[in-house]
């Protein structure tokens, strides 16, 4: 079986995972925390850095998530737990999916296109999901430079228009704003949990855990820099600027002569995002595969089925994004700390399987 090398993992943590947080999270944070948007994001990244460190410590054992669960709870319970976790991954995939759909409709079209234009994404997602998780490492090798070029390009075009003084005075939103911001941002911070299905597929070497945490923190710093620039460009009106990374660079003076070249950088990030958004669904398929073994047809059949379901869900909830986001931020936000913080930390208590002992 192909394993993911530490370098590929670091690329994912530093360059690919942060991209998902550049679309709607910035404006959502401004709605709740105003100019203090950096604090909830900082806490989110700090907590997830710890979680990533813990999950990578588990990776040192070289065992799969399923094996560890089976060793601790028995085979039947392990299957149930894996299915619950797979359901969570599918749930976690839903918001980024809708977010991506809205982003595509806004950034790729002048007028609002039919929802069917987003349908090919599910074809891609089904194809990706049918691939084993271990084969993703090579893709991350390719996507990391794409992500860096896209992000660097947007930042280069944006920093000149940013007034970082707009972030002051710090703490103006108060503790309430901070907590609301934290709850709103919770649904974007599931990276640690996303790594659990990768256990047993990582080629762990000495220092991978802390280096991985450092890579994730580096990605976090880049996102914080972007958030600061975003608020620096738009200040109070930032709350009305969804799809942040397609907007921050639009005041670059060269655009009148060159056209929206910033879109090329956005498209580079969109390419990276297509892989990132489909990843939780792929991880979900992998969890089911781990639970029930891997007959040949299962990954392909399941990925087609799940993506078909998600497509119809996206079709049905086409105009309900605001309500869905409110439900995620106000009612269901607790699910994320449970599955993305508590569960990975509790996994540290899992027993080693007999085989590895």
């Amino acid at each position, binding site marked *: 079986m192909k394993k993911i090398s530490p370098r590929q993992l670091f690329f994912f943590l530093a360059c690919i995972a942060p991209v998902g947080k550049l679309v709607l999270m910035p404006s959502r944070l401004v709605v709740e925390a105003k100019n203090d948007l950096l604090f909830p994001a900082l806490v989110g990244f700090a907590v997830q850095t710890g979680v990533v460190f813990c999950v990578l410590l588990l990776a040192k054992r070289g065992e799969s998530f399923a094996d560890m669960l089976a060793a601790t709870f028995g085979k039947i319970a392990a299957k149930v737990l894996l299915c619950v976790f797979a359901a969570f991954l599918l749930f976690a995939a839903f918001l980024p999916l809708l977010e991506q759909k809205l982003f595509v409709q806004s950034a*790729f079209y002048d007028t609002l296109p039919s929802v069917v234009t987003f349908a090919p*994404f599910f074809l891609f997602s089904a194809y990706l999901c049918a691939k084993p998780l271990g084969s993703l490492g090579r893709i991350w090798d*390719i996507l990391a430079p794409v992500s860096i070029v896209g992000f660097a390009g947007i930042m280069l075009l944006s920093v000149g228009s940013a007034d970082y003084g707009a972030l002051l005075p710090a703490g103006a939103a108060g503790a309430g704003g901070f907590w609301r911001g934290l709850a709103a941002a919770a649904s974007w911070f599931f990276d640690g949990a996303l790594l659990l299905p990768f256990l047993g597929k990582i080629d762990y070497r000495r220092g991978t855990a802390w280096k991985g945490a450092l890579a994730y923190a580096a990605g976090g710093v880049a996102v914080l820099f972007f958030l600061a620039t975003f608020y620096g460009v738009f200040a109070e009106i930032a709350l009305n600027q969804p799809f942040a990374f397609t907007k921050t660079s639009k005041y670059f003076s060269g655009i*009148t002569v060159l056209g929206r070249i910033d*879109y090329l950088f956005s498209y580079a990030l969109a390419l990276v995002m297509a892989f990132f958004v489909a990843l939780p669904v792929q991880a979900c398929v992998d969890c089911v595969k781990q639970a029930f073994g891997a007959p040949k047809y299962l990954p392909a059949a399941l990925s087609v089925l799940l993506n078909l379901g998600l497509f119809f869900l996206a079709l049905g909830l086409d105009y309900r994004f605001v309500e869905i986001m409110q439900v995620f931020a106000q009612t269901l936000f607790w699910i994320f700390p449970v599955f993305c913080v508590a569960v990975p930390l509790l996994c540290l208590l899992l027993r080693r399987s007999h085989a590895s002992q």
Partner: protein
Amino acid sequence: MKNVTGNLQRDLEALKRILPAEDILTFSFASEEIDFACVFADPITDKELLGEQVVRPLLRYTGERKAEAVKKKLTSPEVKTERSLQTLAEEVLAGNPVLLWEGADEGIVAGTKKVFIRAIAEPSMDVAVKGPREGFIEDVKVNTSLVRRRLKTPELRIEMMKLGRRSDTFVAVCYLEGTSVKKTVEDVKKKLSAIDIDVIPDSSYLTHFLSSRPFSLLKQVGTTEKPDIFCAKIAEGRVGLIVDGSPIALTVPYLLVEDFQSAEDYFVPPYRATFTRLLRLFALIVAVYLPAFYVAAQLFKLQLFPVRLLLTIAGSIRDIPLSPSLEMLLVLLVLEVLNEASIRMPKYVGMALSVVGALVLGETAVSAGFVSTPAIIIIAFSGIGLYAVPNLIEQTSVLRLVMLLVAGSVGTYGIILVTAFLLLYLATAENFGAPVLAPFAPMLGRDLRDSLVKYNLGSLPMRPKTLKSPNRRRLK
């Protein structure tokens, strides 16, 4: 299986039954004591050599009737004896005359086949301004000699295989013992042995059998027409195949990056090689994506154009009756037809074709308002750009069409998704154990030194890690 009986008349009849074709001739002559008969394939046997090296020495023969004794009298350097009539018939078909006589228990095969070969010339592809100009020709022996001349080492193995039930085509499997991976060599030989086809007219037939995904759009076997490139690839640890009748040699494992490297890159300073390799990549990306982006921008995202350019485009497409995607498809189709026709048609009509293509179709179509000037410019640039990487032309031209169709229906997001599909497909594809996208995916630090960037030779002491050669060091 029948053997030679010693009864000349009966043996000749038996041989004729196996070879009833009219161009298989029998020439009878007698020495002072023995009646001989020589069976040969008229068009492919050198009759002058046959007379000099076989007939003349035997005219005064008076010795024993045993094959070994007769064989000693012949002056041909390639002589062997054979008992089976079937094998003798095969030799006749290969151009080697067979000698039979009364009382013989074996036939003699003399190597006097007529070899029709063209001179070694510079190939039409893989042209290099600096560096060797020799190209492979259609004869496997000449081609292997070109390889042997460059790799004068006992480690060079050239194993001949005969493939094709009817064509009996010689295929030379070339590799360096101790440098190529044994498993790759065995896999190649196994795949070749498993081929059960009647005729192999060209090396391209073998690519189908060597591919692990025969229906894939993308290339899975490397090709070259130049012995220097072929030898360099073998020296890196690859396995090479030379097919009789084909000037195009094959190499495996194939990596995509190979097609961005040209022979000349190794004869010019590294900074120049790096620049040209990046230029090739840029040209290819622009060639594949530019028509698609132009259509997608016109249909779905006009903001991608700078304002002044947008005004120019708006002015030029104002009276065009076709939609942007149809217009671009039409121009692309015309380009492909012109391209196909210019390759197939006789050379002396080439000038007329240029005039028709450039003036009648281009100029007149624009002035008649069928297509716009920007569309012609974009397709022209795309057409040229594609030829920056000529070895990938079959794949990239199809890809350009796919991109265009997707761009016309889904827009820029469609282009992004096709790219994602392509990346995923390429990144997970392997070829004889080597990842096709190496050294980029997986990223192999040292191998990157001779990928899109090119370091000088002193910085390339090791063979590519991707090829897993057991003998990694090449520079000591």
